[in-house]
């Protein structure tokens, strides 16, 4: 699956914390969420994103992939990404 950010999503950093927002709803990103969001570019698959994060934190890729799939589901439900 290759996700892409929804075209109208906004992205701001306030006091060191990154937020994504759409239609007056804002979502705070944690460190991993931020890495995932920054990697969603319409060219990178979620498997590749999982590889990147597993390597960075030296953790099991299958576990990371599962977490990213869950995160992606939430992003899709809130129309923050499209696939």
């Amino acid at each position, binding site marked *: 699956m290759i996700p*892409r*950010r929804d*075209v*109208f*999503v*906004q*992205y*701001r*950093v*306030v*006091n*060191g914390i*990154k937020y994504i*927002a759409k239609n007056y709803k804002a979502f705070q990103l944690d460190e991993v969420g931020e890495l995932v*969001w*920054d990697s969603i*570019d*319409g060219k990178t698959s979620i498997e590749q994103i999982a590889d990147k994060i597993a390597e960075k934190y030296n953790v099991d890729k299958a576990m990371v992939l599962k977490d990213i799939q869950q995160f992606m589901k939430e992003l899709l439900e809130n129309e923050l990404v499209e696939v």
Partner: protein
Amino acid sequence: MVLDKRNIENHPHLILQHLKGIDLDTSLVYIAGSLMEGFGNETSDIDVYVICKDISTDRFRGDPSSEELILSTQQAIVRNIRHDGIRYDFEYWSWNEFNQMIAKLNGLDFKTEHYIQRLSETEFDFLHRLKFGRPVINKEKFEEIYKSIQFNNLGFYQIVIKSEFYAGMVEDVQGALLSKDLGSAFFMARMLIDTMVTSYLAAYGETNPSSKWLYRKIIRYQEKTGDKILLSKYLDFQTRPFDETTVERYTKEALWFCQDLNVQVQTILKKKQVS
């Protein structure tokens, strides 16, 4: 001999001859503006800044051999002179105003959940010009002050201000597309690109606030970073014709292009905020 205006600081007498009545020992005199930034051309004015104790207009009686015009603004006095075929803009600022602007820039707090303190357009422009200033007299004093100024705050300031504007504009584009006002969406998308590219360049220290120098800023960014994609994409987006059958696609591509730049800009801003 033809004078190369870019090296005018090597000919201080050409500047100082117009500063009779100014106590030079207690003043700063420096040249700034597009010529010093490397953007100017043969027709550009020479912008001279004089920081002095007293800026009342009656101190600036002109040389009868010069054509001149004196304007008084809220914070400064501006004197336009044409002498020997060269146009000079002398701006006289008080030490008080000068020090206040520097203190304001140095004191900007980017680690906040609230709106940051605002610089007026005049203040921002003045401080940006100072970044490229070259002293004519009192060089040591100038260097000492120059080193105390947080010029990189200009870039972060521009990012924050443009980010606020950008957020509002994205909502406007969304509204225009949803209501099928495609012409407005097209024009707004172009404005959005200019805003985002300006913000992105500010992250790389390109803080000239005048939109007329956008191309020159992109070229200098390209020389610094080796990135040629920015200019090619910018030109592609800004030269595509308006076509009702493709405008929706065009607007979305423009928004994605801006989003990608914004991700990089916000990451740079975050580093500043958590540093």
